[in-house]
Each structure stands twice: as structure tokens, then as C-alpha cells.
């Protein structure tokens, strides 16, 4: 029997840590980069690095459970005949049928509708179940145009032109063959079982000048009825948001690098784009510079988890937030209920991120009929609605504490930062000081 090793005397390299060594060994063995779902897992500056200043002597708080604190937001009232009014400032982000099961899409619709907010289609088109169960449905107009048709376009309550997403600004997608069921294949006009590439650029326009004409086209086709959003992955939001506004978007969606994905290269998820915190501030500055803050609405997404996140995003100037990963978790993703099954896949509840593989034990990121059956759309929809209600109540709690009768009355003045980095990114003072790094 070999002598036990005393690890006290072993030094682990910071540069070549055990996970780094393990990844080099995996790459050498498999010859291909790691592709996974979920979102960025590295430590990033987040809304946790900000604090809200509650009212006291100089500000009056509002009575919790009693005094009104409005949460409704109207989106896209710049040009559209029928702007969208959502009852809570939280929407469900675009996730495709294909990456998600039909029952998961249905559950998203049920949960969102129960609390009066919108859900969003994804790459792969609109399913009838999704339309039926979503009172307010935003139709994503994506580069691949999988399943894209004018009937569904006109059936939508809003259109979101996707330029990019936070998990991979500048990148396209891949839906692997194991998730291409007969139904998914038919919707996308491709043979079942083959890997499907989702393009990174739109096939019929390049640049903001073309986008202006594209937006006009979509307005013409839908008779100027529904709002048109433009969604960008957060890279250069100050410029991208202004260009989207100039092109005529009614709503701009900015997705930070913590935004989720169904299948993206690990290197892309963790190393491209900027976090939601600085992206929010830059997007608001862009709208202010263009003179359209609150006229063109801003939705931010990427790593929103709690009402605290929502309140802080709104305080920085966003009109609403969008959630994806958190919504899936609320529905049952990464639930300890499936610990044994996660273990069999070499993972564990709380760590599972192989959405690309199509064998999700929770029946969410799969097209496997047996697995999808594990997700009861009604139950999952109820869980999502509960979670959305919690987020809303938390947001209201924070807004009332700051003396606001509408969650969108929260403002940067209500915030301070815990770290120098967050203070610089959010342009709010470091707590206990008047110092805003880079400003004064």
C-alpha cells in the first residue's frame, strides 16, 4: 500500500490550477472545445456589488403591503399602434423550441401569462402551444430564420430582432443532431438528426442603415401594429443602443455576458462581452444621449436572479428586465429531485449545464419524449408564476423602502457601490464616499 500524501506540502499553481490542467487534458484527449449551456460561471461584478439606500430622515418610505407601488410597464409606444403593457417589469427571454421541450415552452407561457407578462419565442419559430399559452408573446426574428413565416409574425404581440445575445455577442449557435426530432426538423426545413447551425449574422442586412430598412419592412408587413425590439449582446452597448434607436427600434434589449445559452463554446461564454452591470449603465447613457430615455424602453438581461437585481437594474435606468436561466431553474432545472440522474451524467444538481446534450433529467432542455414528460407544464408554469411574483414583491419592497410609488421611480441616486469596480461600472459612488471612479 502506498504512503498517503500530505497535501499540506503541495503547491497548486494559480496559473495552472487543477481545473485548468483538467481542461488541457480534456482538450488533448478530445481535440475539440467544450460546448455547454447555462451562462458565465466565473466571478463577475454584479448587482450584488450595489446597495440600495433606504429612506430615513431625508426621504419618506412607503408603507409595505399598503401603499401603492406600481409595477406595470408599457413597451414600444413610440410607433406601434398596439404597444405592449406588462403588469410586472420582468419578462421571459427568448428560448427556442428545439433547445427547450414543447412542455417547457408551454410552462413558460403559462407562468408569464399568470402574472401578466410576456414570453418570447426563439430560434426555431413559434409553436401553437406557445402561442396558445402566452397571452403576450414576443416573436424573435433571428439570423437563421428557422420557422420564420409571416403568419406567425403577424400573430405576435411584438417582434424582437435579435442581433446578438449576451452569452455570445458576435457568435451564432449550434443545435446538435440529438435534439433534432422530426418536429424540430420539420419546423426548420432540415433533415432530422443533423447538427444545425444558427447563423451569427442576418442573411439580408448588414449594419444599422440596413436595419432601419429592415425595421420598416417588418412594420409594413405587420401594418405598424406591434412594437419592434432590437436585442444586442452587451459588447459596446453605448454605440449599439444608439444605432438601434436610430434604426427605429421601439425597445432595446441588452443582454449581459451572464445571459444564458443552450449551447455555446465555454471560451465564448466566459471571455466575450461585458457584464450586465456596466452594460445597463452604458445603455441608459446611450438612450439619454439620444434623448429617448423612457421613450425607447430598455430591457436588460443576463444573470437577473432576485428582486434586488430587478430594483437595481431599474434604478440604473432600465424599464424592465428579462430572465431566462432563472425561469428554467424556477421550473425545475437543476432540482435536487433529479440528483441521481445528474450523477449518472457526471454532474450534480446545482452544477448541471449540459443543455446542448439533449438528455436533461428535468425534461426542460431536451426533445426526448420520455424526459419531457417529467415536466408537467401546469406545475412548472405555477412555479414560474410564484417565482415571478416573488421577484415583483421583492422589487416593490425595495422601491417602497426608497420611497417610490412606482418601481421605475428608482434612480441612480438611490444606489451606492460596495467595490471600486462596481462604482466605476455603475457610475454610482463608493459607499460612504462621494467618489465615483472615473467621474470625480
Amino acid at each position, binding site marked *: 500500500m502506498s504512503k498517503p500524501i500530505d497535501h499540506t506540502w503541495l503547491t497548486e499553481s494559480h496559473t495552472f490550477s487543477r481545473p485548468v490542467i483538467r481542461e488541457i487534458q480534456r482538450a488533448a484527449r478530445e481535440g475539440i472545445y467544450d460546448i455547454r449551456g447555462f451562462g458565465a460561471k466565473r466571478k463577475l461584478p454584479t448587482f450584488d456589488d450595489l446597495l440600495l439606500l433606504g429612506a430615513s430622515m431625508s426621504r419618506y418610505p412607503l408603507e409595505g403591503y399598503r401603499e401603492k407601488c406600481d409595477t406595470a410597464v408599457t413597451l414600444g409606444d413610440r*410607433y406601434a399602434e398596439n404597444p405592449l403593457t406588462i403588469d410586472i417589469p420582468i419578462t421571459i427571454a427568448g428560448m427556442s423550441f428545439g433547445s427547450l421541450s414543447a412542455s417547457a415552452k408551454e410552462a413558460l407561457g403559462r407562468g408569464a401569462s399568470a402574472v401578466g407578462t410576456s414570453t418570447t419565442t426563439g430560434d426555431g419559430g413559434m409553436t401553437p402551444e406557445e402561442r396558445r399559452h402566452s397571452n403576450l408573446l414576443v416573436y424573435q426574428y433571428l439570423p437563421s430564420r428557422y420557422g420564420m413565416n409571416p403568419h406567425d409574425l403577424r400573430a405576435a404581440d411584438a417582434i424582437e430582432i435579435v442581433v446578438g445575445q449576451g452569452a455570445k455577442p458576435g457568435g451564432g449557435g449550434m443545435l446538435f*443532431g440529438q435534439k433534432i426530432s422530426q418536429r424540430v426538423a420539420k419546423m426548420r426545413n*432540415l*433533415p432530422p438528426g443533423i447538427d444545425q447551425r444558427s447563423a451569427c449574422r442576418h442573411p*439580408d442586412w448588414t449594419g444599422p442603415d440596413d436595419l432601419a430598412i429592415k425595421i420598416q419592412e417588418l412594420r409594413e408587413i405587420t401594418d405598424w401594429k406591434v412594437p419592434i425590439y432590437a436585442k444586442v449582446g452587451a459588447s459596446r452597448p453605448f454605440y449599439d443602443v444608439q444605432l438601434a434607436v436610430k434604426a427605429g427600434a421601439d425597445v432595446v434589449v441588452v443582454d449581459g455576458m451572464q445571459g444564458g445559452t443552450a449551447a455555446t463554446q465555454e471560451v465564448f461564454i466566459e471571455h466575450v462581452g461585458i457584464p450586465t452591470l456596466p452594460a445597463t449603465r452604458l445603455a441608459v447613457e446611450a438612450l439619454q444621449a439620444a434623448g429617448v430615455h423612457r421613450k425607447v424602453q430598455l430591457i436588460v438581461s443576463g444573470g437577473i436572479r432576485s428582486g434586488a437585481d430587478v430594483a437595481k437594474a431599474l434604478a440604473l435606468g432600465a424599464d424592465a428586465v428579462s430572465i431566462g436561466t432563472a425561469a428554467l431553474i424556477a421550473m425545475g432545472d437543476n432540482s435536487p429531485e433529479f440528483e441521481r440522474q445528474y450523477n449518472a451524467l457526471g454532474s450534480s444538481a446545482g452544477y448541471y449545464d449540459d443543455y446542448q446534450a439533449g438528455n436533461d433529467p428535468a425534461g426542460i432542455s431536451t426533445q426526448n419524449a420520455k424526459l419531457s414528460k417529467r415536466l408537467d407544464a401546469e406545475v412548472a408554469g405555477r412555479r414560474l408564476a410564484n417565482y415571478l411574483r416573488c421577484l415583483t414583491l421583492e422589487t416593490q419592497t425595495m422601491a417602497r423602502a426608497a420611497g417610490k410609488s412606482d418601481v421605475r421611480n428608482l434612480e441612480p441616486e438611490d444606489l451606492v457601490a460596495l467595490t471600486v469596480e462596481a462604482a466605476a461600472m455603475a457610475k454610482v459612488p463608493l459607499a460612504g464616499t462621494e467618489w465615483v471612479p472615473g467621474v470625480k
Partner: protein
Amino acid sequence: MTSRPQQPKQTKQTKQTAPTEFDLRDAPVRELNRALHALTGSRLSHSACATVRVVNPGGKHNIAVGADVDADIAIDGHVGYYCAAMNQHANIVVRGNAGPGLAENMMSGKVMVQGDASQYCGATAHGGLLVIHGNAAARCGISMKGVDIVVGGDIGHMSAFMAQSGRLVVCGDAGDALGDSIYEARIYVRGKVRSHGADCVEKPMQAEHRQELTQLLQQAELGVGELNLDDFRRYGSARELYHFKTDNAGSY
């Protein structure tokens, strides 16, 4: 910046069966599109279908987009971006040249351009027939999903990029990287192909291919009798890149 269009003034519109004329020098494009959309659901037999004439298009964008009616729409002049986009059922003729994105995402019907078409014509189109009498620029038929496209002249580079299904017939030459990453679409080229894109290969012409080529040329009214089918070659997917493998990394 975009501005909300004015409410339309009804111009010379009469009964559906009578020709309706839109002079785009005076009338906004919105008025034309609104009138076309108003015809949706009133699909008539072809002999009694609506006839719409558009004059002085002046290269304007988004002319006759989102039509969903069995109508004959004739446009006398040049059109800008996205003319006939998402067309369903309508038979649209452009007596001039067309700007980028002609008939993008068309679902059905027929769109014919008597001049040349700019880039991305027929992009992502799901069905119907698109005919260009002249040349088509780069990325003709990009991501096509079931449409048939017949081009009388040449096509530019990266045409039929990621083409999923449908047929593309080119009576002239094709530019660089034809059919790059093509899926199940079929391409017929009469002239030279400057280069093939990744996974696009020449395939043998069988009787069934000659037959479908003949039909497409006939439907396009491009004078099949004057063209020798033996001059055409067929191109399609080698299906080597259908599954993402590290061994293929050099192909992309």
C-alpha cells in the same frame, strides 16, 4: 429616423377585379401595402384575381411586402430593398431592377424581375418561384428553405450559402464559394463556377434532374428551347459537414 406613417388617402382603388393603380411618386408605400393586406382572405379564382399596377416606384424600399392574396402586381420601374418580401400567393413582376433582399422569406407565389437583382435575393425563402431575367448579385438564395430561384444571367459570390432546400438554377456563371455549407438544396449552373464553397460538390445529372430543370425553366419562361440542358451541371451537398467533428475543422 422612422416616423409613423400618415393615415392613407384612398386613391384610385375600385372593385377588386378592376385594376388598381398606385403612383408611388404621390402615394406612400404604406398605402400600397395596406391596400394589398386588405385583400387578404379575399382569394379569388385566378381569372378574377385582383390586378394592381404600381408606377414610379423610384427605387423605394419595401414595395409590395407581406402580400397574401392571389393578385397580379406589376411594378413599372426599379425597386429598393425587400420588394415582394414574405410574399404569399401573389404574382409580382418588376419591370426594372431590384435592390437587396428581393422576395426575402417568400412563402409562395411568383416574383419575376426583368432586370438585375442586388444581393441576398430570395434569402431564407420557403416557397414559390423567384425569377431574375438578368443577373443576381452576391448571396443569391442565402439560407433558402424551399424556394425555387431561376436566374437568367450570372450570380455573385457566396450564393446559396447554407441553402437548406429548394432549387437554384443559374443560366450564366456562378461566383466564388457557391453553395458554401449547403444542406439539401439543389443547384444547377449552365456556365462556369468560379469556386465551390465548403461541402458543395458537383453531382451527376440524372433523368429526374433534367426533368425538374426543364420544368423550372418553363415556369420561369426563360425559353427552355433555346437552352441546351447538356450545358447544365448539378451541385449539392457532400454531407460531410452535417455533424460537427473536429476532423472537419479545416473545412470551415
